[in-house]
Structure formats: structure tokens, C-alpha cells
């Protein structure tokens, strides 16, 4: 993954595989790309980093023919081209792996790979050709996938391979990957980078869009930084650092590590005993999980998405019912299958919940900010005036919180949908922390949130803990878990498979636990755990 392969990028007279000159694109009054210039040399891995809304996706959409640039020029291998559609992009050898896979779950790998290039009315011939091609690709690049397996049965990492295969089988020489590691375990991500390495060795040019600076530093040859629609810097990867890139992205110095004082651990707030949650399909998602969270500490739950953390969090918040076991809040209220509670009662007990998915749970995106500000508190006296809602109180409250949490723009009348991810998350945090909760349940607090806001959110969570709140943090970002938590639990396949103090944690060990491969019983990796997510 280092300089061994860089001989191909030197080749003096060779034109760049992709060259963008002066690309501009605006949507109404919003200028998404302004005079963007980019040169990607053939046979290299080129990273593009930037905060959400910096214009990375727009730029790649222009390259892939989804949008037309208002101005500027695209050159592929030194020749000016117009890319009117994704079909044209494919014909030019440009392939794209989207963040959210574009696969048909109920069809086989082979069918998915052929989709859109069936090669005639009858599938027979195309199928044989595709099968042969798949075999060749898996031999050449180590991209092994069972062609007849159903895509829905594959793990996320394997599904991503199918996406890459789809691009390659269409003759792609330039591969764009949009946030490819968001859903992968560290080990799966490493496998992905090995594959990308192999592709590069065979002359494929790769553009990697990510917000994870660690990956940029580990995997790319050169990197371009975008901020507010503009390309602000190009660097050779070995000549830059995470600190420099973060500063370029945000436009100011950023603290990447969270500074936090020693925890002052208080009494037990949450005590879970053999908590079990069963889903609608009668599958146990959380299997007899026991742990405690004390006042004044942050307990982080690490794990690959889909291993029961979401269900655990929702059960604690009163959204899902327990099917077995119990947990007690504050030593007073014990919740079990026989004595359930609902989110309403949970709030009354001093529990606040920042849900994992703010779009589907934490906000009603069509509602204005001030109506979202009372979500879950809509029955409170302070927001009601007899029979009527006290809108003015809600608006005034919302405006004050927006000020405190630096939500931009600070307009309580705007629909939640029109705020950026970071600002939406601040809206949710403001609402939930306003109650000064005893127990704070937090899921993926910084998912889709830009670096500047991440810093703010992390500091806010630490401040809550220092004020004596018990914080239970669920995140798929291992770095986040490691830097915020005082104590770390690792979940895999619905079980807690490891517990350690943050000081003793190392990412490699947690990664193995997340994949449920502990040093002593390596062969027992549960197949079900792989499939989830």
C-alpha cells in the first residue's frame, strides 16, 4: 500500500486520467461547486476529502453524468468530453460505487452484475460471458464472491465487492468510491484497501471520497481537499498529516482528540440484567445483555451496525419491548417484559434519547424547527396553554437553544429538512439535553455530521458527563467510541463480547471482537452476525 506502486504515476508525459478544469455548478442560489480543478493521474488512488456539503458529491455526480456543470471542462485521458448521462460515463470507462448500494437483494450476484448489460433478449449467452468474466476478475484482483449467492445473503463487505465487480465488468478504468468504509468493520475496510491496491497495480485509477482522514492517509497517493464548493488544496499524501487536512477542510484549527477530565463516577443509574429483545420476525436481536452505567461516566458500545446495539438502545428508550430480562433506572423503576414502559414514561424518569437515525426518528423533517423542538415534550405544561399549544413559548425556547448550540441558520421557522446534518443533530441534542437528563442514550451522534460540528457535539457530551449524567453511547465509529468513552462494551450478534476500560482499549483488539473472532475461539465466528447490518 506504499510507494512500490508509484512508478506508474510518475510517467512524465502521460495525461491525467481525469482532469476537471474550472467546474462550476449552482442549484438556485446555492453554489455547490465553484471553479473546481482536479487532476487525477492514471494508476493512482486519489482521495477527496471535505465536510458534508463541501461539494464532493456534486462534483462526482457531474463526473458520472447525473448533473451538468454550468461551466468548465472535463478531460478523460487528455481528451475533452461531455458526459451527458451515466451511460456516457460508463462508456468512457468511469465506474461508481455509491455509498448506498444499488443492488437487487433478491437476485443473485451474477444477475446483479449483468443488470443493464444483459447482452441480448435471451440471458444465456450473456450469462456465460459474465460468469467467465467474474472468474477472471476474482482471480486477478482477489475479488472473490460466489456468483450464484443471493445478494441479500451476503455481508455488507461482500455486497460492496459486487458493486466493484459491476463497475469492472462494464470495462471501468476509473473507479469512484463514495464513502466506501462507512458500513464496514476495520478488518473489512482493510480488505477493501487491499483490493483497491490490487486494482491500482493493474492500472485502474481510483477516486476515493471519504471523511475519514485515517483512510486517506493509509490508502491514497494524493489527496484534494474541498471546502464550501471550492478545491482548497492538493497534497501528495506522504507530505501531509491528519491535522493539516482537518484544518484545510474546516478552515480553522481542529482538535481531533477529545480532551476530557477524569470521570467522577457516581451511583448506578442504569442496571441491565439479561436484557433480551426479539424482533417481529422472532429473531433475538439482543441476547441476555447485562451491564451498568453510572452517573458521571460515558459507556461506549462498539460494534458493526446491525449487531443489536440499535435494538438495545431502543429498548432502553421504551420504543421496543423486552422479551426477557429487565433493567432498572435509578434503582427505582424496573422495566421488564411484564412491566414495560413507553418513551413517555422514560422521559419522565429523566431519560433523554438522541436516536441513531435523526431523519427517521429524531426529527419530523417536514416540520419547522420549533415543532421539532417540542417532539416528545409536546405534552409539557410549558408548551401548552390549556387546550392550545403555546407556539410562542416553543418558538422562543427553540430560538434560545439554537443560539446556545450555534445552530445555523438560527431560524426556528425553517423546516428541519433544510438544515445540514450537523445542524439537525444539534437541534436534536438541544432538545434532549434541555431536560438535564439523568441518563442520556446517544446513538451515532456524529453520523453525517461535519468535522466542526463533531468537535462541538463531542464536547457537549463530555460536558453532560461532567455534570453527572450517565451517558450510554452507541457508535459504529470506533475512533469516536475510543476517544469519548470511559468504559467500552463490544457487541456482536446481540451479545456483549467484551468489556474494557478505554485506557486499555486498542482498535485491533476491539475490531476482532466486533467481528466476533476472539483469540481463543477463532473458528466460532457466527455466520448470522456476518449477515446482519
Amino acid at each position, binding site marked *: 500500500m506504499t510507494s512500490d506502486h508509484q512508478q506508474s504515476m510518475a510517467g512524465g508525459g502521460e495525461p491525467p486520467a481525469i482532469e476537471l478544469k474550472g467546474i462550476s455548478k449552482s442549484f438556485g*442560489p446555492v453554489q455547490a461547486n465553484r471553479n473546481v480543478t482536479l487532476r487525477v493521474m492514471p494508476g493512482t488512488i486519489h482521495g477527496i476529502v471535505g465536510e458534508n456539503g463541501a461539494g464532493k458529491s456534486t462534483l462526482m455526480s457531474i463526473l458520472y453524468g447525473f448533473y451538468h456543470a454550468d461551466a468548465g471542462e472535463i478531460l478523460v485521458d487528455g481528451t475533452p468530453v461531455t458526459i451527458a448521462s451515466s451511460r456516457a460515463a460508463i462508456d468512457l470507462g468511469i465506474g461508481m460505487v455509491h455509498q448506498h448500494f444499488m443492488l437487487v437483494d433478491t437476485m443473485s450476484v451474477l444477475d446483479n452484475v449483468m443488470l443493464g448489460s444483459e447482452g441480448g433478449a435471451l440471458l444465456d449467452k450473456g450469462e456465460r460471458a459474465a460468469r467467465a468474466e467474474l472468474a477472471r476478475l476474482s482471480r486477478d484482483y482477489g475479488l472473490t464472491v460466489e456468483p450464484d449467492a443471493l445478494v441479500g445473503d451476503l455481508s455488507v463487505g461482500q455486497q460492496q465487492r459486487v458493486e466493484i465487480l459491476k463497475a469492472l465488468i462494464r470495462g471501468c478504468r476509473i473507479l469512484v468510491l463514495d464513502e466506501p468504509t462507512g458500513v464496514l468493520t476495520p478488518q473489512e475496510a482493510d480488505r477493501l484497501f487491499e483490493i483497491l491496491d490490487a486494482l491500482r497495480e493493474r492500472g485502474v485509477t481510483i477516486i476515493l471520497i471519504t471523511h475519514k482522514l485515517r483512510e486517506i492517509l493509509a490508502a491514497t497517493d494524493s489527496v484534494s481537499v474541498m471546502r464550501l464548493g471550492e478545491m482548497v488544496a492538493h497534497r501528495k499524501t506522504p507530505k501531509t498529516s491528519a491535522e493539516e487536512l482537518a484544518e484545510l477542510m474546516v478552515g480553522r484549527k481542529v482538535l481531533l482528540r477529545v480532551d476530557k477530565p477524569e470521570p467522577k463516577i457516581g451511583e448506578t443509574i442504569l442496571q441491565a440484567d439479561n436484557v433480551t429483545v426479539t424482533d417481529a420476525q422472532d429473531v433475538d436481536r439482543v441476547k441476555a445483555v447485562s451491564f451498568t452505567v453510572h452517573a458521571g461516566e460515558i459507556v461506549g458500545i462498539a460494534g458493526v451496525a446491525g449487531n443489536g446495539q440499535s435494538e438495545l438502545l431502543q429498548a432502553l428508550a421504551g*420504543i421496543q419491548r423486552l422479551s426477557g430480562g429487565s433493567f432498572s433506572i435509578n434503582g427505582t423503576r424496573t422495566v421488564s417484559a411484564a412491566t414495560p414502559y*413507553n*418513551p413517555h414514561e422514560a422521559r419522565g424518569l429523566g431519560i433523554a434519547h438522541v436516536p441513531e437515525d435523526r431523519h*427517521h426518528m429524531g426529527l419530523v423533517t417536514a*416540520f419547522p424547527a420549533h415543532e421539532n423542538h417540542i417532539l416528545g415534550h*409536546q405534552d409539557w405544561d410549558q408548551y401548552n396553554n390549556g387546550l392550545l399549544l403555546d407556539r410562542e413559548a416553543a418558538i422562543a425556547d427553540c430560538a434560545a437553544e439554537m443560539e446556545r448550540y450555534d445552530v445555523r441558520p438560527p431560524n426556528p421557522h425553517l423546516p428541519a429538512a433544510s438544515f445540514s446534518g450537523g445542524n439537525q443533530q444539534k437541534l436534536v441534542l438541544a432538545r434532549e439535553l434541555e431536560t438535564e437528563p439523568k441518563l442520556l442514550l446517544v446513538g451515532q451522534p456524529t453520523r453525517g455530521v461535519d468535522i466542526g460540528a463533531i468537535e462541538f457535539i463531542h464536547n457537549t457530551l463530555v460536558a453532560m458527563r461532567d455534570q453527572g449524567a450517565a451517558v450510554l453511547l452507541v457508535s459504529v465509529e470506533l475512533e469516536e467510541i475510543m476517544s469519548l468513552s470511559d468504559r467500552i462494551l463490544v457487541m456482536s450478534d446481540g451479545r456483549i463480547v467484551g468489556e474494557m476500560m478505554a485506557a486499555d482499549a486498542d482498535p485491533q483488539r476491539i475490531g476482532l471482537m466486533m467481528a466476533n473472532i476472539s483469540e481463543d475461539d477463532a473458528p466460532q465466528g457466527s455466520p448470522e452476525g456476518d449477515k446482519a447490518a
Partner: protein
Amino acid sequence: MSQPIKLPKWVDVGVIPALNILAALAVSALVILSLGENPIEALDVMLYGAFGYDEAIGYTLYYTTNFIFTGLAVAVAFHAGLFNIGGEGQAYIGGLGVGLVILALDGLLPWYALLPLAMLGAAVFGGIWAAVPGWLQAYRGSHIVITTIMFNFIASALMVYLLVNVMIKPGQMSPESREFAESAWLPMAHQMFAVIGIDVSRSPLNLSFVLALIASVLVAIFIWRTRWGYAIRTVGRNETAAIYAGIDPKKTIFWTMALSGMLAGMVGINEIMGVQHKLLLNFTAGYGFTGIAVALMGRNHPIGIVLASLLFGTLYQGGAELDFEFEQITRDMVIVIQGFIILFSGALAYMFNPLVARLIGRLMPARG
């Protein structure tokens, strides 16, 4: 579902509906032209028929009253994400509730004492007729569209049975109840105007029109200014967020449907207590179905619903005149025009959005 293009509010609620109606009228004009009649003349006749003299206005507003109630019923359900197609049956059964209350008490109480009881009857009967499908949707997953349609048929069959076998006035051929005592009739508009010394011609317009306007205001307040309306809208927009907020979507669906049915049931006040003064068959005459179009056109907002109801009232009343005046045009023409209006303002509601968006973009270059 593609996202409709974002337009300024005044365009969205003013210009676009107007364009849709104009387009519908233009196409209707072509149809009238192809029948060999003059569309301008037809429009003139229709407008005169709807607003030309005070009896016509009375009829127009009388139809409007029914559409406001059924339109509100559809809109309330819609805010909870429910498509209540059963306004027709709920209005029918609501009328039954009104009839039963008045038949039981009409000799004993004057109309003003009966009115709250009759409204209660309409609300309870109409409400139950909608709440049962609501319950089935919430707790059994039976799709509300299917069940409300089925309940229309059940209502229809039930009413035939009751009127033919149980409630029919003895010694009479037609399946109708006895007429209510005159003291139980709602005051007519011409009577109310006569009290203050204004002379207007007789029409079916009655006090219910005022009730419909009051209902519109109350519904607006309820939906946007109370915690229950907030709960309904939250469930309609994002059920997961509702659960997160401690709102029970199942209960909300049940009660929203009940409320929707209560509003539809109020058609019974206008028709049974206000106009017919007896229980009879098919007095709902499609008002429940037209209420869907009204709500759609009125964007589920009471102001829009009142305006859309007025439009449909105009069509109902003015359209009848077309039939009299033109040899080639029958009453069915009204249905054709209505059809076009529903097509353009319902199914093709967003057709003009891109066009208008481009126009506005050209006229008002990017603000801020």
C-alpha cells in the same frame, strides 16, 4: 414519489390551483365546442346559474356546506397519513344518527335544543362508522382504503334495510321515515334573513352553512394549534418519530378516523335536519366522494377546503343550468367538468410546477 418542486407559498396555494382550474376549464371548453355549443356562453350560463340570483346563491352555498364537511373529514384523516374514502358512508350513517335523535324527540324539544343532540347523534354514528375501519387499520393492519370503501356499501345496505323494513312510515310506498315536526327543522337562510328584515328567495340553504364555517375554523385550530393535532401530524409525517416522542400511532389512527367520521356525519345535519326533514335513501348523493377531490384541491387546509367547496358548489348548481339552457349539453357535462378539475388539480396537481418554477426563476433572479 418524486419531490414536488419548492415554490413560494403564494404560488403554491394561489397560482398553481388557479392554473389547474383554468386548464380543466380549457379542456372542458374543447369538449363543449366539439358538441357544437359555445363554451363562453356556457360559462356565462353556469356562472349566472350559480350566482345570478339569490336562490341560485342559496343552492350553491347549500352544496358548499356538504362539501366543506366531507372535505374536512378527508383532510383530517389525511393529516394522519390516512386516506379516508368512506366519507359517503359516514355521512349516510351520520344522517341516520341525526334522524334517530329527531324522530325520538321532535315533538318534545325545539330545534335549538335538538341541534346539539342531533349533532351528537351525527358525530357518534358517523364517528363509529369511521372508527371501526380505523381500528382495523391500527390493530389489524387492514388497509383503510379497502375497509372504508367496504363500509360505504355496508352503510348503503343497512340504510335500505332500515328504511324499507323498520323506519318506513306505515302506509307509504317510498322507503322514507315520517316527516319531522316543523319545530325540529333547522332555520332556513330565507327565514333567518327575514328576521332582520331582508327578503331573500327560498332555497335549501340553512344554518348548517354557518356550522360548516365554524367547523373549518375549529379544525384549523385543532390540527395546527393543539397537542392532539400535533400528534396527528407527527403520525402522518413520520410514524417512527411519533413512537419516539411517546405518541401511540395506533390510538392516534383510531381517534383521527373517529374525528374524520364525525365531520362527515355532519352532512346529516345539513341534509336531514336542514333540508329533507325526514330520513330517506341516498341523500348523500356523492358528497362524500366529492369531498376527496375537495380536500385534495384545498391542500387539506380548511381555507383551501372552503374555497374548493365553493368551486364544487358552483359546478353542482351552475351545471344544472347548463342542462336547461343548451340542447346538446346534458347534466352529465357537470360530471365531465368535475372530472377534469379533479384530474388537473388532483392527479396532475404538480404538472405546472416546473413551468411556473422556471418562469419565476426568470422573473425573479436568485434572491439572497
